[in-house]
């Protein structure tokens, strides 16, 4: 299968710091590809480089292609209109606009926005249509940020830590949403929550020290405790798994 996105030798410098040093990977045309790595390794930077949002002080080299088309040096709004959906790490909803206005803004010309789909996933957004997005709680804002992108048809979704700071219940919901979305659109996902990763990911790319340290089947990565431990610093069976980890660990604690 031809990959939907291929990144080759991507190098990003921001004000002198060489953050990505020749990153290459591909994203399969179906399913979820997860981008893993420790804090500060450059996951967000990678996504932002793909969608053309490297800060002014930054310098991007390498090639990024979607199909046959090169993405580098094209303005962000063109890329997005071309079907590249982006959910940023820190939500970035428009605090001063109402929820409904936030959604309306995301409508793209010439397509019919899929409001029913979004409201079915997040009924909260329908109910709070008139509330200003800035007064939503963190989790509600995340729903809005995801819902906003799902209004449109996309060829590829870039999603940066969608479950950060969400209650376990909502984490589950978000994971479900992404799972369903991934049935029709390929997703490149940055996620710290291994339970979510395990549930969604088909392929995995692990970044370390500004380079790609491992690529392959996500399940394979998660199964091999030694591998995850060396790449991500955790074993899948360990206690300190982040949020949303299954109840077993909760029960385990209960049993102490």
């Amino acid at each position, binding site marked *: 299968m031809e990959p939907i996105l291929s990144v080759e030798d991507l190098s990003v410098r921001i004000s002198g710091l060489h953050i990505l040093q020749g990153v290459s990977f591909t994203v399969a045309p179906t399913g979820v590809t997860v981008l893993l790595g420790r804090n500060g390794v450059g996951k967000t930077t990678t996504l932002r480089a793909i*969608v053309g*949002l490297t800060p*002014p002080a930054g310098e991007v080299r390498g090639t990024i292609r979607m199909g046959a088309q090169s993405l580098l040096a094209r*303005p*962000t*709004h063109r890329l*997005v*209109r071309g079907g590249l959906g*982006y959910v*940023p790490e820190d939500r*970035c909803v*428009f*605090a*001063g*606009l109402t929820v409904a*206005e*936030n959604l*309306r*803004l*995301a409508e*793209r010309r010439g397509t019919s926005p899929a409001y029913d789909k979004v409201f079915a996933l997040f009924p909260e957004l329908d109910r709070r249509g008139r509330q*200003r997005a*800035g*007064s939503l709680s963190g989790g509600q804002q995340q729903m809005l940020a995801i819902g*906003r992108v799902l209004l*449109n048809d996309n060829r590829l979704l870039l999603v940066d830590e969608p479950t950060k700071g969400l209650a376990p219940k909502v984490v589950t919901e978000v994971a479900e949403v992404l799972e369903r979305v991934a049935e029709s659109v390929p997703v490149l996902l940055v996620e710290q929550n291994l339970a979510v990763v395990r549930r969604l990911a088909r392929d995995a790319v692990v970044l370390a020290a500004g380079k790609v340290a491992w690529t392959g089947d996500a399940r394979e990565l998660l199964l091999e405790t030694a591998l995850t431990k060396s790449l991500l610093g955790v074993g899948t069976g360990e206690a300190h798994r982040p949020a949303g980890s299954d109840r077993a660990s909760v029960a385990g604690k209960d049993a102490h």
Partner: protein
Amino acid sequence: MGTVILLALTGLGLAALYFLVASGLSLVFGLADVLNFAHGLFLGVGAYGTWWAAGNLPGAGPDGFGFVLAVAFGVAAGTLVAILVELVLIRPLYSRTIEQVLVTVGLSLAGVALLQATWGADARPFPRPDWTRQVTGILGAQVPNGGLLLIIAAVLVLGAILAFLRWTRYGLVIRAGVENREMVTALGIDVRKAFTLVFAIGGAAAALAGALGGVYFGTVSPGQGSSLLIFAFIVVVIGGMGSVVGSAYAAVVVGLVQQFVNYYGTSGLGDICVVGLLAVVLLLRPQGIAGKVATA
């Protein structure tokens, strides 16, 4: 009674002028986050554009339709300059607020100097229909027609801007772009167009203020814009940045206070009152009369 009416109506005329300058300033300032010290230049261009057109543009003149054409030319010139300024000077500097200040201050100095270099430092008589020099008797007051014209224009501009912001998609984009340009882009919208638009609107309103102010004052001079600018800034701030309605309220308050205090109090007190008003409003309500409460 006649005096009160006269003061009120001329005060409103002044308010209308302040509003026309302030509305654009407020939009650009509150929405595009640019403290535009060169806004007075747009006014100057509008005024000189109208003046020039009335004398030189075929079909334009100081009367009737010719005058409308001259004003239209002036407004178009002001708008064009505003667009150019945005495209060439401001656009590369978005999110670099302080450097924008440097550029707009530089532009206001250079722009006024350029007007002066071209047309001289002295005031020129402004071409205008005769009826604008006359007065209309309203309840015993002899109200200058030029002032009434300003009031009507300001009300129309206010309505148009509000409708635009509230009901058009570009209005929405402008309001969102202020908060987070990057994210608007990430939704597939070319936000830069919206900012150019804001400048165009502000430039047009200011240029109109220049043309009608020329009618009202009877002259045009290079520094006219800058001297109005400080009061326009005060109006913007009292009204709340980004709020066009707030600017309208504030302009009325400032215009009336100046007029009444100057009549009943001693000279200069009107200005001090306005400035005092600004300080009091800001201390009690830092976001201005109609300003949105900052989100935590």
